[in-house]
């Protein structure tokens, strides 16, 4: 808390005469409100001038405050823009908020401070209609260019049934198709240079190498990449909008589908954030079960990456081996949860069910099986001379660039930054486990791969510790807001029955407040920033997905390489389009 | 053998004519390849299998492929085709055509009045004979040609090299 107070003090000293209204939040991240004109200066100070600076723009989003009943006193306007900065030196965050008025509010851009603000600002423009003065390319990013309205505004309908029947007359189709026409100038590309005409290659959205509906427009000089621009949004499902519509409890299955390879890794930050808002303490057994499931899914997700990575550089077999091994994990998950890829297994206050009898045999079997397979893959892929030739020195970035661009997870660790939220800010009892943070030095495709392969081994270590030290006790908290309510407590009298009935039908009423929780997902830092208005559903659900900033870095790390390299680079970013577009 | 010879010769002439008149560069090059293959057949029937094989390997198989490669790289559109078509007006081809006709007439004369010049070979000339000839009586010509090629290679390397910026 002292540290929180001190940074606000620093700000007051540096900017006398400017009001820095602190707001208290449930997650104890120092949150200050700054007048909109001062935002850029404050952020510049926090990034460049303050001692032990906040180098990473972790998240940038907005809130439509117009319907909020429990609005903080500082939010005087219609919209708030939220900047979430992270300091690796301090291991602490700061949230800078500013309030904006009117139907077409605008704010100065910070793309000149952080290059990664580019996509974030476009997203805020797309979703809220908040303009950023000085942004060079403020176009829609997730919604189609012809979309009307800004979806995350409260007055935008959330369901198709509220929007009237969809029709596509010829004129409209013509307009839509015209909007798809490719004009290099709009993408910031030139058609020719002094001595050559460029070739534009449209990679995707249907392409075997893009791992989903990603479109990359390549500007090629021969086979050399002059520029590469990613076009995203093809997988956008309005997950954040759905968060405002579903109850706290019924939103859990949606989180599974954000990073669809991560399964319960997505549940983790979401339920943790709700538990923080509601003040629920999770019993030990539930915590360890959660950790074990998360680590199993981390291995599963990395295995998919591993197989497709090898596939993308032309190796045919590893993908079959990796999917076979993943199948073994999914069988364990199936035995525990009944579902495979999307178990939606975590609940507010615990997990859905206790582990089944004989669970330890299944996990033990996997732990005995997996290490020798990993050793084999090491020989087949990581030691392979052609793999090395294709990935060493390709798509590299430095640690400073990574932090600048908001890279987290294996991509950050591959440039030598020993940063893992499980270690640095332990949640769900990670502090009780022994594991190392694998790092590498060069930040190229090969090093990112090395880090991920080693992470699988570390995850196996954690799973083994879970297996050996599984505590006994309840698998769910008995807090009244823990969902679904424990059945044993209902059948006593009418009051308990009514409480149970309300809990099951409407779901819990989470106390008003704000909280963000960052968890280390398989792709990087996955954060849920939840605002409760004291209702049965969230007022604003912000999903800070790791793949979004990682993919944004694509042009920077692929310029100057060959066409074939971009596939290696894409594979080594390890993104999931659903995680990018949400 | 004679039938095959004349058939190949007709194909060669026809394909060459088509190669000249096509407006699409790739089509023209394809006819050129066909023409070269036909010439290879002609050589084969004349008893020079080695020369025929080299004709295919080097001309049809490598040089024309390179031409096609370059044409593909240039990726010319309809504008070039229109320009090509403009080139094919009589005023463009009539003079070279007449000159070639004179050459053709001379050739006919040579073939008609000097019969031993076009006589069929006594036997097929194999690779060994060609090699002996090249490195025997014609050694100096081979050396000079190889020097010329070396010079060409070095020149191409020099021109193609990109200066480090």
């Amino acid at each position: 808390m002292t540290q929180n107070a001190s940074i606000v003090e620093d700000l007051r000293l540096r900017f006398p005469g400017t009001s820095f209204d602190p707001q208290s939040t449930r997650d104890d991240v120092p949150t200050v409100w700054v007048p909109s004109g001062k935002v850029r200066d404050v952020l510049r100070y926090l990034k460049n001038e303050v001692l032990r600076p906040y180098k990473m723009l972790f998240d940038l989003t907005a809130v439509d405050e117009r319907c909020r009943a429990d609005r903080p006193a500082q939010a005087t306007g219609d919209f708030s823009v939220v900047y979430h900065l992270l300091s690796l030196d301090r291991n602490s965050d700061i949230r800078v908020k500013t309030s904006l008025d009117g139907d077409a509010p605008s704010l100065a851009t910070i793309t000149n401070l952080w290059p990664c603000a580019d996509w974030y600002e476009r997203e805020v423009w797309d979703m809220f209609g908040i303009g950023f003065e000085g942004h060079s390319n403020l176009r829609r990013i997730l919604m189609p260019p012809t979309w009307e309205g800004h979806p995350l505004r409260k007055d935008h309908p959330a369901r198709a049934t509220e929007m009237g029947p969809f029709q596509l007359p010829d004129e409209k189709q013509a307009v839509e198709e015209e909007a798809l026409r490719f004009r290099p100038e709009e993408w910031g590309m030139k058609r020719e240079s002094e001595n050559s005409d460029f070739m534009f290659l449209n990679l995707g959205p249907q392409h075997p190498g893009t791992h989903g509906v990603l479109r990359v427009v390549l500007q090629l000089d021969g086979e050399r990449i002059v520029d590469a621009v990613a076009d995203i949004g093809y997988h956008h499902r309005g997950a954040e909008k759905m968060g405002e519509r579903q109850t706290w409890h019924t939103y859990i299955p949606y989180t599974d589908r954000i990073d669809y390879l991560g399964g319960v890794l997505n549940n983790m930050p979401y339920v943790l954030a709700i538990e923080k808002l509601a003040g629920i303490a999770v019993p030990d057994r539930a915590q360890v079960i959660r950790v074990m499931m998360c680590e199993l899914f981390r291995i599963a997700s990395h295995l998919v990456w591993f197989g497709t990575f090898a596939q993308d550089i032309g190796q045919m077999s590893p993908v079959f081996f990796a999917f076979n091994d993943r199948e073994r994990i999914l069988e364990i998950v199936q035995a525990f949860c009944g579902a495979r890829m999307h178990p939606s297994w975590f609940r507010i206050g615990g997990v859905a069910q206790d582990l089944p009898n004989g669970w330890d045999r299944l996990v033990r079997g996997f732990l005995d099986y997996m290490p020798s397979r990993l050793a084999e893959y090491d020989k087949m892929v990581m030691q392979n001379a052609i793999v090395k030739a294709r990935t060493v020195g390709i798509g590299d970035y430095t640690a400073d660039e990574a932090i600048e661009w908001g890279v987290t997870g294996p991509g950050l660790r591959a440039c030598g930054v020993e940063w893992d939220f499980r270690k640095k800010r332990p949640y769900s009892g990670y502090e009780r486990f022994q594991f190392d943070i694998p790092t590498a030095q060069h930040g190229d495709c090969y090093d990112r791969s090395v880090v991920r392969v080693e992470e699988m081994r570390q995850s196996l270590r954690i799973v083994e510790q879970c297996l050996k030290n599984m505590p006994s006790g309840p698998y769910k908290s008995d807090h009244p807001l823990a969902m679904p309510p424990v059945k044993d407590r209902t059948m006593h009298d009418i009051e308990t029955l009514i409480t149970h009935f309300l809990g099951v039908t409407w779901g819990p009423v989470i106390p008003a407040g704000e909280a963000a929780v960052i968890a280390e997902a398989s792709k990087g830092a996955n954060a849920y920033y939840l605002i409760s208005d004291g209702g049965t559903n969230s007022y604003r659900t912000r999903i800070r997905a790791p793949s979004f900033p990682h993919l944004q870095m694509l042009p920077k790390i692929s310029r100057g390489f060959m066409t074939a390299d971009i596939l290696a680079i894409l594979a080594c970013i390890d993104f999931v389009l659903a995680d990018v577009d949400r | 053998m004679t039938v095959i010879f004349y058939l190949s010769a007709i194909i060669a002439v026809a394909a060459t004519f088509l190669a000249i008149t096509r407006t699409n560069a790739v089509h023209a090059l394809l006819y050129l390849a066909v023409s070269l293959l036909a010439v290879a057949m002609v050589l084969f029937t004349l008893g020079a299998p080695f020369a025929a094989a080299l004709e295919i390997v080097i001309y049809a198989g490598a040089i024309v492929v390179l031409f096609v490669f370059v044409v593909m790289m240039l990726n010319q559109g309809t504008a070039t085709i229109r320009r090509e078509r403009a080139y094919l007006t009589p005023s463009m081809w009539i003079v070279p055509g007449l000159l070639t006709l004179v050459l053709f007439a001379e050739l006919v004369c040579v073939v008609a009045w000097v019969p031993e010049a076009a006589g069929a070979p006594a036997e097929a000339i194999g690779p060994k004979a060609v090699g002996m000839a090249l490195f025997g009586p014609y050694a100096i010509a081979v050396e000079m040609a190889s020097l010329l090629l070396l010079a060409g290679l070095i020149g191409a390397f020099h021109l193609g090299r990109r200066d480090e910026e």
Partner: protein
Amino acid sequence: MREIVFHLLVVVCVLGGTLSMAGALIWLERRLLALWQDRYGPNRVGPFGLFQPVADAIKIFTKEDWIPPFADRAVFVAAPAVIVVTVLMSFAVVPFAPGVWVADLNVGLLFLFGMSSLGAYSLILAGWASNNKYSLIGGLRAAAQTISYEVFMGLSLMGVVMLAGSFSLRAIVEAQQGVWFCVTQFPALVVFLIAGLAETHRLPFDMPEAESELVAGFHSEYSGMKFGMFFVGEYLAITLLSALATVLFFGGWLGPVLPPLVWFVLKTGALICGIILLRASLPRLRFDQLMSLGWKILLPVALLNIVVTGAIALLGK
């Protein structure tokens, strides 16, 4: 008269044999890959899935034969035929056993080079005629790749020609009565196999059709039997490559006890399996790496091999 009948029989057998070999290879490759990749492979049609190629053929013949409206029709149709024709022509000079060959040309090896260089047209023209950028890049890569690797392939075999004293494949086999050329010409064998794989654009050299980058490269727009022709052409080319390696380096039909033709088939089969194993295990090189491998490593090795072999051959006289 009997000789003419025998000769015709050989021609028919070679044509039928190689074409059905292509079908069998489709089955073999899928089964072997499956074996090495922990899965079953085709095992539903007939015993061990043996009739899978038949089912595939029925499917591919009855598929809609679609020519994209933006393609150059004539060239688009002709391109797949070129590869099958040139590869089949190449089999004409391969000696399978004593007396069993279609033609014993005294420039047999040169004829093979000629055919394989003409085969390059197929990919290039397919890539160009599809009028699709992926196909075009595939075609360009194919052109550069086949032209360069033809050089290394040709140079690598000059040592063999020197030792045998002939371009005729029959003479080359007969020259291996004592020691197979895979011993005396080992560097040539390595260069030849690498160049051969690059010529047949198989993994690790399948850049012209690299599916993760170029979708399907030069044949992206092809479907139905036109695609089937490329497919068959590729398997024929693998067979040809193995048969050639057998003839040039592994003594062709030579071998004890078993009949010559059996030896030939066994050796070729083993090489084919080796090529499939390579596909199961290796990743793909990048295009510029392929080029530098060729010009910086294979070319010097091949040239050195020629010089050394030539010197030894001269001294031997």
